[in-house]
């Protein structure tokens, strides 16, 4: 055979063999948990790279998991609420954590709820709400993107006709892309780390990211980063809402969620997620506190009007002993906090307490049920809590 012809034959044959090996490796390691390949200790038991593809991973995981209870929310819930904790009543198990880190919004809330319900045996939904999601109007849903197309139902709640093609596309993405290959290799290499990021089969996440930073740079570093973030974000939110009149944006999506749960007979618990007082102060200083109170009032009225007995609304966003826990100074890299990684993201022990509170089990006093009758008093109490909190500031006692 001529050298050029032999070159082409060797190249083509090697290409086919290599392509097959890559597909086989990606299928076995399954870095995004799309195929449900067995998790083998030391090889692929943890899925650190699934975090960046959580919409993909969780859409497939939940179909296999078929939960009785679904947890919905942003990264705060993804990291802070344990789906497999002992505090979940037997009647609510199994629980799947379908919270989505990253750009979570209220459109996603309804889409993920529909997906969870379509798996067949959903009876309970626990949804954590971030008040920030109701300060900026969300764009109306556009044409379905890949995250919409892979769900069991389309936005109107009918069987999704586009799903077959998207599943093929997802399978290809997870088998035959450079990203999947590098993520498979990273998955294998990360298995022996002391602590590895993971999206477990029940959708919950390990705390690896935060633990590693907190151990290396101290919790104070995490708080400092978030301070910069909130200092930039809150004035923007305040400017956006300055001329806003009438009910806050996006509350209609909560009404859609309530209506969906009523139709499907799903018991719904809504919870306003806790935020550390350090971050709440940025909202206070930006003049957004009345908007937070407005959010709670309108939400309580909405739940009472549309939800009747089947829906409960909890408020954990206050200045309690949990949310005002002291933050170590920047120079202190050793002291760890108990309840919060940083002002937004609470730790799993606080998640446990909230679940116990919402399921009627014995737990420390934290949060309160909100109704139209109690919301005004709750708002007044939190203002009083805040006054007490700022009086603790020895450098500037009882500033207003």
């Amino acid at each position: 055979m001529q050298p050029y012809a032999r070159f082409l034959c060797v190249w083509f044959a090697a290409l086919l063999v290599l392509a097959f090996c890559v597909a086989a490796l990606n299928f076995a390691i399954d870095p995004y948990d799309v195929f449900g390949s067995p998790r083998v200790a030391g090889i692929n038991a943890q899925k650190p790279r699934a975090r960046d593809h959580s919409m993909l991973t969780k859409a497939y995981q939940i179909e296999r998991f078929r939960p009785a209870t679904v947890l919905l929310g942003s990264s705060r819930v993804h990291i802070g609420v344990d789906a497999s904790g002992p505090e979940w009543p037997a009647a609510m198990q199994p629980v799947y954590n379908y919270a989505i880190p990253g750009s979570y919004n209220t459109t996603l809330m309804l889409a993920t709820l529909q997906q969870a319900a379509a798996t067949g045996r959903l009876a309970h939904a626990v949804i954590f709400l971030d008040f920030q999601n109701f300060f900026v109007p969300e764009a109306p849903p556009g044409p379905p993107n890949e995250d919409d197309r892979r769900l069991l139902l389309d936005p109107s709640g009918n069987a999704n006709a586009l799903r077959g093609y998207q599943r093929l596309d997802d399978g290809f993405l997870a088998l035959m892309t450079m990203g999947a290959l590098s993520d498979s290799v990273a998955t294998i290499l990360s298995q022996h780390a002391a602590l590895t990021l993971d999206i477990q089969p029940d959708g919950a996440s390990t705390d690896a990211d935060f633990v590693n930073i907190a151990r290396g740079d101290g919790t104070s570093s995490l708080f400092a980063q978030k301070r910069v973030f909130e200092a930039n974000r809150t004035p923007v939110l305040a400017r956006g809402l300055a001329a806003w009149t009438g009910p806050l944006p996006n509350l209609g999506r909560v009404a859609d969620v309530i209506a969906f749960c009523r139709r499907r007979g799903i018991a719904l618990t809504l919870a306003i997620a806790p935020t550390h007082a350090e971050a709440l102060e940025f909202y206070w200083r930006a003049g957004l506190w009345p908007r937070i109170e407005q959010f709670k009032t309108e939400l309580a009225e909405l739940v009472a009007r549309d939800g009747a007995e089947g829906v409960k609304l909890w408020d954990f966003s206050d200045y309690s002993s949990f949310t005002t826990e002291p933050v170590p100074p920047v120079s202190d890299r050793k002291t760890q906090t108990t309840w919060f990684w940083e002002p937004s993201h609470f730790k799993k022990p606080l998640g446990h307490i909230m679940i116990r509170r919402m399921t009627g089990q014995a737990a420390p006093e934290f949060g309160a049920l909100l109704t139209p009758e109690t919301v005004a008093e709750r708002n007044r109490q939190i203002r009083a809590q805040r006054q007490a909190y700022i009086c603790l500031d020895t450098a500037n006692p009882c500033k207003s």
Partner: protein
Amino acid sequence: MLFNSYAFIFGFLPLTLAGFWVLGHRRRDWALLWLTAASLVFYAWWRPINVLLIAPSILINYALSLALRRTGEDSPALARALLIGGIVFNLCFLGYFKYLTFLQGTANDLFDAGFTLTHLILPLGISFITFQKIAFLVDVHAGRVKEFTFRNYALFVLFFPQLVAGPIVHYREMMPQFAVAPCRFSAENAAIGVSLFFMGLFKKLVLADPLSRLVAPLYAQAAAGTPLTLTDAWIAALGFTLQIYFDFSGYSDMALGLARFFGIKLPVNFNSPLKSSSIIDFWLRWHVSLTRFLTAYLYNPLTLNLTRRRVAQGKPLFGGRNTTLSAFVWLLAMPTLLTMLISGIWHGAGYAYILWGLLHGLLLVVNHGWRVLRPRIFLDAKSYNRAMKPVGFVLTFLSVVFAMAMFRAPTAGSAVTIWQGMIGMFGATLPEAILNRIGPAGPWLTALGFTPAWTSGSFLMEATLRIAALLAIALCLPNTLEMLARFEPAIGVKPAKQPERLVRLLTWEPTSAWALTLAVVTLAGVLSLGELSEFLYWQF
């Protein structure tokens, strides 16, 4: 259709090649017709209306060429009028689609003209096609091209490997090749074509594209008026310089490889420009086919015309030790600045492109000026070159990087913001997590003025590692043309007489070892197809 798409690699290309080789066994002209038809499909794929826009322009240019050929010798005045008419027609065609909105916006800015901005969709590759059509008219007028048919002309304009982003080719270097191309499968051409194409795909998808994800937010930040710190500004400028180099040179390698499948060699477009030791050297290595076009069809005629005028006026000319300032200004500086201004305008409708062109023009003038002055200051050229080559490299590299920020920035103002960041006007920060982890360097950097930032260190780490790796590849390794020089991968490329050790080590051969290496490179490129992205130069 994008070269880096599944449809192209697994559909269009195999079908086109199969048809070309099968028909070529019967009749060569059938194979060439098939290639022209396939090129039309390639062009129409993205937006079929493109064909309706470009087809009348091709017909008119062909008719003008016929008229030029017929009148050329009998009536020089008419031929000249036809040529000027043809050039004006092509420039108006380009101007309408590419510059109308910009001109309306400029008129609104300057004179409050109140034009409603017309947002036209730019026909694919219009800037490249227009230059080739103008070059063809000039060549016919000058008698450099005499024999041509409509079939050949259509194939010359539409040949898909060079259709949308070059290299810019001349009729007289292409058609003689088509005239003798075997139009049959050749294992040698296929092996070289496959190697060039997939090395280019690797450069584009694996090396260039990940940088885009890193630098795009920084330019958006500058466009929004947010200052960039020292490190971010350098990441933006260096990152984009490397991104566009690997993107466009990768595209050019792919074009060379595709043409080679059909037995055709295209001209060189890139020859390790970032290794240049002067800005003149840079333009002889960067987008070479554009430099060649602008030199042949703009700079040289302009300089010739000005020289004739000065001769007629009895004024001194440019060249040698006795060059006067006025000769330098009129015969070198002005034509250079004008040529680079046109180059900037050609690249895009925006003030930033114009300023980028002028900036490079200015750098070229300084470089030429120094070449005139240097022999008067440094008498020993050899020792000067030995000592100053590294200095020239650093100065050239920095100049190119600074200018690239202007090329990429959405507005001239945002480019200035990046420049200000690059010289530290907006402060220097490093993520606290990094300052804590670099040992004694942390306090040293803090003493230098770096302050801790409460941001994640992962962005800086990834950007630094990627930029360092790509700089090493661009500056230390031989380029694709050097690796394949023995097989003339582009017109006129020959192996160096005394190649460097690394070039010898990485010289391509049709061996099993190279086949296995290429299989890995191919697979990496193909696996990266999922993250579809356009070539930067497709917008020009």
